[in-house]
């Protein structure tokens, strides 16, 4: 009898893996294995015409942080690489913070509508999100160019006489990123707010908390998992962004994503590109660790 139970569980296990493995296999081939390849590449030397030479070298990794001087080959802490990393980090953090500042009240607003209207508001958030990224970025471009609607209106209204240069600035990149990824912040924050028990707010009011204190003491701390999830969801694509700096940054405000691409294109330095990719991955992993630490504990943390 015991064996009957065992046989059943063994055949169940076989069926299970039969069902799971195709999906896993596709992901392995289409995403995981290539990543392992570039891990290998990051320890090789660049080939003369692109590609790699199969000689072990830590040069690529050294160059992530250090610069070999163009003229005398001395190593210095790489101002330019750090600058790009720092700019990417700052821009994506600024994007995340802006998304949060704008997204939180919006999510809260939706979560406090009556349930019937809520779905409609939510739909309104998702529609732009489901619209092609490029289309949205071009839309921003049209809006903020020197002869775009905003400048035209401002000039017509007499606020300014010369168009304000918005396109091709860090501001434009940030605006574009916020615009493109804002729904990724609103949705998880909304999810955590929507679950929130209204009676907790009443309990706080009952216990002498004024509206602002209710926000600070109850609403925000309880929405923390959503806030963290949203921040991660915005931060990851923002720091790795490739398209936005091209379209809105005018090619002179490179971010790490473009710099990586550059190494595989014009730069012809695949090992260095690989090392940079992995450095980016590392930053993302750190962010994810923060998420797993704080997001999974159901926000029962109190600051």
């Amino acid at each position, binding site marked *: 009898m015991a064996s009957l139970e065992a046989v059943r569980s063994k055949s169940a296990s076989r*069926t*299970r*893996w*039969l069902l799971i493995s*195709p*999906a896993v296999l*596709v992901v392995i081939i289409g*995403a*995981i294995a*290539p990543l392992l390849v*570039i891990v290998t590449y990051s320890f090789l030397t660049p080939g003369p015409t692109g590609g790699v030479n199969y000689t072990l070298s830590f040069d690529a990794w050294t160059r992530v942080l250090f610069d070999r001087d163009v003229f005398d080959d001395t190593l210095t802490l790489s101002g330019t690489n750090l600058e790009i990393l720092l700019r990417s980090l700052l821009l994506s953090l600024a994007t995340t913070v802006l998304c949060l500042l*704008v997204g939180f*009240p*919006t999510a*809260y*607003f939706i979560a*406090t509508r009556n349930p019937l209207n809520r*779905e409609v508001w939510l*739909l*309104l958030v998702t*529609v*732009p999100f*489901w619209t*092609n990224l*490029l*289309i*949205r970025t*071009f*839309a*921003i471009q*049209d*809006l903020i160019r020197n*002869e*775009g*609607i905003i400048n*035209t209106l401002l000039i017509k209204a007499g606020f300014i006489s010369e168009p304000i240069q918005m396109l091709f600035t860090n501001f434009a990149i940030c605006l574009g990123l916020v*615009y493109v990824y*804002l*729904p990724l912040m609103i949705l998880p924050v909304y999810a955590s707010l929507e679950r929130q028990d*209204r009676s907790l*707010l*009443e309990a706080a*009011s009952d216990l002498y908390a004024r*509206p602002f204190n209710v926000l600070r003491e109850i609403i925000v701390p309880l929405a923390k998992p959503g806030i963290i999830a949203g921040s991660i969801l915005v931060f*990851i*694509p923002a720091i*790795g962004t*490739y*398209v936005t700096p091209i*379209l809105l940054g005018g090619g002179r405000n490179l971010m790490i994503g473009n710099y*990586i*691409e550059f190494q*595989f294109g014009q730069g012809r330095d695949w090992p260095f590109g*690989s090392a940079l*990719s*992995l450095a*980016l*991955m590392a930053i*993302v992993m750190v962010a*994810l660790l923060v998420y797993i630490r704080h997001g999974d504990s159901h926000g029962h943390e109190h600051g």
Partner: protein
Amino acid sequence: MAKAFPVTHQRGFGTVAITTFIFLYAPLAVALVFAFNAGTSPAKWGGFSLRWFQSAANNQQVISASILSLKLAAISATLSTTLATLAALAMSRTPRFRGWTLAYSAISFPLMVPEIVTAVALLVVTATFRGWTGYSGLGYLVLAHTAFCVPFAYLPIRARLQTMDISLERAAGDLYASPWNAFRFVTMPLLFPGILAGFILAFVTSLDDVVITEFVKTAGQDTLPTYMLGQVRRTITPEVNAIAAVFLLISVALVMCIYVVNQRTKIN
């Protein structure tokens, strides 16, 4: 006199929210309006006309890019939804097993890696493979798209499965339904909205992809997004807006589709 103490009210949040919605829609609205611009600038109004829709419809490159985009999205969404459905069934209809976390991490992996990293990694691998095999067909793009669509298809299906009561399938078994019949008559109909949502999400994700496609594609494999990205090397005309208008329409239709299906089939 107010009716009830407004316990959820936070001052200024409504204003921010409304501003946000304006912010979300203003660029799209402007882009849409300029799709009907008679002039050649996507920013300077020159009267109403449909010429850019016409011009897009006559642009051989736009047409073949659109067809490729749709084809690619359809194939990879179908594949990834099928794979994701199988995996989701196996992973949420049995108790936690050894390897569950591993399988789950693998499936959600593409979500956690910045696209550019996957893109260059695929660039390297596919370039090498093309060299070895000489094959440079659509296969690479299909594989790449399917891979990054898997988690998108997986999420709604799994979510649906989790809210779906497992005792319904037991009840079917109890009522003389063989495992296949239980799947056919109970699991499948109830899971369908999830599968549809997964498919649409995967479809849109594939349709939306620029970065990975840009790096994996070879000659003649421009999708609409990569064609539009190529716009940075061409004069921008309202033709882009016209294409955007059409795609916006498709997206809205798909979103509405999910919305309606979800409304209709809320699990009680």
